[in-house]
């Protein structure tokens, strides 16, 4: 049957479900590539080894990107490691705070640290970032105080930081919308003659939204300096990526006229390199790029979710072997780029961060109720004024009553 398989479509003449049996491929016909084992850019193996950049067939692609991190220093590598560790720690703390009732909800990035830190560290301060709701690691790279991210999950605001403070837009919950905002912003950057770039994050699920397709079209037509960074974490809540596409997502770009590349999303070096390349393209006036970071959501979709209902533990186990943090740690250790002191210090820093996050959240006050009426309009609106006044009178009536 169509929806799960085509085997049930009896009257069909030839073997059902086999693509390409009618006719033969040709130059004008663009045949679908079968999605088998993902072919991806990787610079650091799961075992923590730098991938050889010899120009053989299998690794040629890596070489091209490797040059974007060719001169990376041990200090920078330790910095990436630190970013990932602190991000994971922050994320775990937030999950715990949700369990304790301090947050209403939390969307964990566990497992996606490399994709976020690698791409986030590739950005320049004047670049602009449009996140989804899970980009805590990117926020970290942008210098957004992590405690600011918690307000919306605690329910005290819908986004507690100034987007222009760090060129990091608010989290966007309506799936895919932000890719158009990013594209428009990038059009504006180009109109200004600036050489900044814009990066839009979205998920594998989001790739199905019409808005994302429209953003590809606008970005291509206007040659906008925007990088579409898709974290394919294999799941859109309970739906595996096969419910969104039957070919690898990075290939989507080709049909819109710009390059797409799949990168190992658990390899922070590869993510850094590929994103640098894509951002450079943007700065150079070469237009948009799609980066698909192939990664895994190791936790639940959010704290409200129960992944045991739709996926097996062994899947997670397999991905744990590719853990982005462990991988870099192995490399740092094997190459003597970090000593025990570094790890110990980081552990302490991590603890301190956790403590600060806990304290800040617990002290986070509820907003004043009149905040309901604030910022609905920039220039005011008579009805809001009227309702605010009525509300004030109504509130006062209790005070009066209590005062009696």
């Amino acid at each position: 049957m169509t929806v799960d398989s085509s085997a049930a479509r009896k009257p069909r003449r030839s073997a059902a479900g086999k693509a390409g049996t009618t006719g033969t491929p040709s130059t004008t016909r663009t045949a679908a590539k079968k999605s088998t084992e993902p072919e991806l850019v990787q610079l650091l193996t799961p075992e923590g080894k730098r991938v050889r950049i010899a120009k053989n067939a299998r690794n040629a692609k890596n070489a091209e990107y490797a040059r974007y991190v060719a001169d990376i220093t041990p200090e920078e590598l330790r910095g990436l490691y630190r970013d990932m560790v602190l991000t994971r720690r922050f994320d775990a703390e937030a999950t715990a705070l949700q369990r304790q009732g301090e947050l209403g909800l939390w969307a964990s990035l566990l497992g996606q640290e490399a994709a976020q830190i690698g791409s986030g560290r590739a950005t320049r301060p004047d670049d602009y970032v449009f996140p989804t709701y899970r980009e805590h690691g990117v926020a970290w790279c942008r210098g957004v105080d992590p405690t600011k991210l918690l307000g919306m999950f605690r329910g005290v605001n819908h986004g507690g930081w100034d987007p222009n403070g760090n060129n990091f837009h608010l989290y966007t919950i309506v799936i895919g919308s932000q890719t158009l905002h990013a594209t428009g912003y990038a059009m504006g950057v180009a109109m200004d003659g600036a050489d900044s770039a814009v990066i839009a994050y979205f998920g594998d699920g989001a790739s199905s939204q019409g808005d994302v397709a429209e953003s590809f079209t606008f970005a291509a037509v206007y040659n906008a300096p925007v990088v579409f960074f898709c974290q394919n974490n294999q799941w859109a809540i309970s739906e595996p990526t096969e419910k969104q596409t039957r070919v690898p997502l990075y290939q989507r770009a080709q049909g819109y006229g710009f390059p797409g590349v799949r990168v190992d999303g658990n390899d922070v070096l590869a993510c850094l390199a590929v994103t640098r390349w894509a951002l450079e393209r943007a700065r150079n006036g070469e237009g948009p790029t799609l980066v698909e970071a192939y990664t895994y959501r190791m936790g639940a979709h959010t704290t409200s979710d129960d992944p045991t209902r739709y996926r097996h533990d062994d899947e997670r186990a397999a991905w744990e072997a590719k853990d982005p943090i462990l991988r870099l740690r192995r490399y740092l250790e094997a190459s003597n780029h970090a000593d025990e002191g570094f790890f110990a210090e980081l552990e302490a820093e991590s603890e301190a961060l956790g403590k600060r996050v806990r304290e800040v959240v617990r002290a986070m006050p509820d907003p004043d109720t009149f905040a309901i009426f604030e910022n609905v309009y920039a220039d005011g609106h008579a009805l809001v004024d009227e309702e605010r006044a009525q509300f004030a009178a109504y509130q006062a009536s209790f005070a009066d009553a209590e005062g009696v």
Partner: protein
Amino acid sequence: MAAETMATKNMPLAKAINESLRRALEADPKVVVMGEDVGKLGGVFRVTDGLQKDFGESRVIDTPLAESGIVGTAIGLALRGYRPVLEIQFDGFVFPAYDQIVTQLAKMHARSLGKVKLPVVIRIPYGGGIGAVEHHSESPEALFAHVPGLKVVSPSDASDAYWMMQQAIQSDDPVIYFEPKRRYWDKAEVNTEAIPDPLHKARVVREGTDLTLVAYGPMVKLCQEAAAAAAEEGRSLEVLDLRSVSPLDFDSIQTSVEKTRRLVVVHEAPVFFGSGAEIAARITERCFYHLEAPVLRVGGYHAPYPPARLEESYLPDLDRVLDAVDRALAY
């Protein structure tokens, strides 16, 4: 409590919808359930729990993450003779599908001079009160009621949830079925062999003589509580559960208001251009000489639904309803 017969079960509202969907899937092979995460997961509120297991992936369909696609393909399925029941995951996520709903789903029957019918049900968990993040607590019913070609309903308890879903699926018209998400866990007796009220008929859920409270969906319970509280102060409030927002059962409201001569409408959606406006306008026209006071409205403010920590102040509550009752009675 009525004794449980074989046909009567006590169950939460979410479960009642689940049972109703199950019955529809069993009764008619053309019924299909579609949406994001409705399959293995059973929906984020578990309303479709177990259905894919029992009816297969071709009857309970996990769709790509694209609401316009969900509604648009459902229209095509309906043209092919299917009766799709769609889930929109949350109120705030229906808007990507709004074009398909307003320009296609609502109009295609008329456009075809009646030649095609689109029996599509769109389930939307709606309303606030569950401490959720942005876009998860809205009440957009007015945006559908204004559109000719759509029917809009909202049950307030498990029994109505069960039966109104049966009726919505049987209807040959598109029905937007708003589920009061904060009442999902409220239990009630559901008699699966009852003869249900007509889908678009309001029901008096409490009789009274001094003032009429009308509501639908999540606010019915609140109005019942308000009526109980008012009774303690010696005031007799009648409570009407509208059940349907389009059409609105003005006859039932009129009958009540001709008796009580005062009307307060309660809903979560912003008051401005909300259901209360239409009810106030038409009932004032119908009952001009009966009304002792203007129709008063209690609802959301003209502001985006606030963060969870403020929702109590944003939403109608007992005090605000009683305050409106006091004001109406003061005329």
